[in-house]
């Protein structure tokens, strides 16, 4: 055999190996077949004039019921939807002293952890105090949810004694007739006294270092209670793991939450909560579901300021829903930290497996930490690994070796609040490569509790034509498919023609809040339960919804 033949054989061999590697081996590594990503929604066979067909998640195809409850076994054959009390009962039944809820303490700048026994004791003490102070079932709060005190008050209302929480995003203009007891920060005390509230719980009871701002009460008829006094009250005998709850049908119809947003009230029913929780749990494939090994890190708003924006309300709702989901699953540790405190270093230190941040936080991590790391001259091999891993992701193959961070993050949840800082699919590719993680984008909008749309767990595609080259801006944002408890369609809107599958998104399902009295939300909610949501875009050929930017 001459040298030419040997060379030809070697080159031919290499070409064949490369072809087999590329077309057979890499294809076999794909998480799902690309056809699965080309048909992500179940689409109704008919449509009405001026409307698109109805789109649902493939998990709840047409012909199947939408997800609408936790399906808790009741008796031998019956199942029921469940309610928030079931969730706390479930959390206590799965008690393990290692399971904790950790919150950032703004005063000490440290994390404070509470196991479920400690939380249960605090809830019982708070519930007893609420009962003592308020003759009305509605408890008002005007608090930043990024504090453990606020969360304890919220969860007490959800889990104990039939309270309803009324959450104000702005200080009301006059005292609401249905609220007797208000919980607020010390700095807001004068405003609530001015509004003639007689029963007030202060959560930052002068021990946060602002004693000089102590407010002198002029009247004696105001019951002012400090949160710490309630929690430190050892006179009240409570059992750490006892939870007195037997199911009654009435509980399913209780309203646990009223959001007072810009002086308009939206009610959220038990069914809204359990449906959104059940949908969220189902948005992850069973083999990747949340488990006892998981640590969830959730970014929240600042612990000392109340932002009145709707984005802030949605971030808080997302935080609460995620914590409730964590209670239902057997997740090990839940850590809540203001987003401003979260960096690559924090993520490395806390080593979460589930990361829940807003889209704008991912944007800042991308621009302030990941891109500088990639453009720096150090770590050439690491960069090569990163690029290879990014390429594999773009081909539908999950990989971790390109990760730029020493952590075990396995699912990143991005909370899309429809801000202008949209993440492109190319940005998401970089983020998931940097974290070595899957990435789910969830879209939120008032008055829906929990996400309206979610992207596919296995969808790593980078889409062409995303950027408008003239303005250097994103043209559309991929939002994915409907949450399992909702069905969606678009209607004609101005120049958008539903015939082309574009228009205004309208929604129908189980996690939509109900407006009280005359309110735009309710007025619009008359067309067979379909409600316009103010999001404009187009259904893609893949069954995903794309918002026009």
């Amino acid at each position, binding site marked *: 055999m001459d040298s030419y033949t040997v060379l030809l054989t070697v080159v031919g061999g290499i070409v064949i190996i490369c072809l087999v590697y590329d077309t057979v081996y890499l294809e076999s590594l794909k998480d799902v077949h690309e056809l699965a990503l*080309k048909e992500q929604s179940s*689409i*109704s*066979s*008919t*449509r*009405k*004039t001026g409307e*698109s*067909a109805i789109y649902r998640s493939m998990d709840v195809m047409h*012909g199947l019921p939408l997800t609408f409850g936790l399906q808790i076994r009741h008796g031998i054959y019956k199942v029921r939807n469940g309610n928030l009390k079931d969730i706390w009962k479930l959390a206590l039944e799965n008690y393990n002293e290692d399971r904790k809820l950790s919150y950032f303490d703004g005063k000490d700048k440290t994390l404070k952890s509470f196991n479920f026994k400690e939380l249960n004791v605090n809830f019982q003490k708070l519930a007893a105090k609420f009962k003592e102070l308020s003759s009305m079932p509605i408890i008002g709060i005007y608090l930043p949810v990024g504090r453990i005190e606020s969360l304890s008050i919220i969860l007490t209302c959800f889990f104990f004694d039939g309270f309803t929480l009324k959450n104000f995003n702005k200080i009301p203009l006059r005292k609401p007739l249905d609220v007797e007891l208000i919980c607020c920060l010390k700095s807001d005390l004068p405003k609530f006294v001015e509004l003639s509230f007689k029963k007030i719980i202060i959560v930052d009871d002068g021990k946060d270092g602002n004693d000089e701002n102590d407010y002198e009460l002029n009247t004696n008829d105001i019951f002012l209670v400090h949160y710490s006094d309630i929690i430190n009250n050892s006179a009240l005998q409570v059992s750490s793991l006892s939870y007195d709850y037997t199911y009654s049908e009435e509980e399913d119809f209780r309203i646990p939450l009223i959001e007072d947003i810009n002086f308009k009230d939206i009610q959220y029913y038990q069914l809204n909560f359990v449906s959104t929780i059940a949908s969220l749990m189902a948005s992850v494939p069973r083999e990747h579901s949340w488990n006892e090994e998981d640590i969830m890190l959730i970014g929240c708003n600042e612990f000392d300021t109340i932002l009145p924006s709707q984005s802030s309300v949605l971030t808080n709702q997302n935080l609460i829903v995620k914590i409730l989901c964590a209670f239902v699953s057997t997740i090990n540790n839940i850590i809540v930290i203001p987003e401003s405190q979260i960096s690559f270093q924090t993520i490395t230190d806390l080593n979460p497996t589930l990361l829940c941040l807003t889209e704008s936080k991912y944007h800042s991590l991308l621009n302030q930490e990941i891109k500088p790391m990639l453009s720096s001259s150090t770590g050439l091999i690491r960069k090569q690994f*990163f*690029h290879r891993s*990014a*390429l594999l992701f*773009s*081909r539908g193959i999950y990989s971790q070796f390109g990760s730029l961070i020493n952590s075990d993050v396995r699912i990143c949840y991005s909370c899309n609040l429809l801000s202008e800082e949209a993440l492109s699919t*190319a940005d998401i*590719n*970089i983020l998931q490569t940097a974290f070595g993680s899957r990435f789910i984008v969830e879209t939120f909008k008032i008055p829906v509790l929990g996400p309206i749309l979610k992207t596919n767990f296995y969808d790593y*595609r*980078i*889409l*062409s*034509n*995303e950027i408008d080259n003239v303005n250097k801006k994103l043209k*559309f944002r991929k939002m994915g498919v409907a949450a399992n408890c909702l069905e969606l369609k678009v209607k004609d809107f101005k120049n958008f023609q539903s015939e*082309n*599958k574009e228009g205004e998104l309208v929604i129908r399902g189980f996690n939509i809040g109900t407006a009280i009295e005359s309110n735009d939300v309710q007025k619009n909610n008359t067309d067979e339960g379909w409600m316009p949501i103010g999001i404009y875009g*187009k*259904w*893609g*050929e*893949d069954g*995903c919804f*794309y918002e026009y930017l």
Partner: protein
Amino acid sequence: MPDSIVITDDPISLGSNSSKDDEEPVLEGKFTPKTLYKFNGFDTEKIYIGVKGKVYDVSKGRNFYGPSGPYSNFAGHDASRGLALNSFDLECVRSFDEPLDPLDDLTREQQASLDGWEEMFKEKYPCIGTLVNEDDL
């Protein structure tokens, strides 16, 4: 973004709505015997039948209404008389070029039978429009 990255065609560009007509959702609206006939299960995947002036999409019951199914005579036609008489015979089904059956000679029992069928269709299949004579369009 690394240069070698794989880009997928975006699914919403103009002209990307290239799916076959058969896969496109049908517009709910008015059908005539002629336009309904197309949906007989032979020419398209979709199977529609008319019952008491309404049109139902029975595609998911292809085993019953599709070709060689026991109710295949009803596919793409107004099935009202056949259902009222509990008969699958062709005599009970009018051709697409005939006007709609007024059903005014049905007995009380036959009418009750038809109402029962209608309830079943309402529960089981999506109603996608109404069935009218061509003159009424």
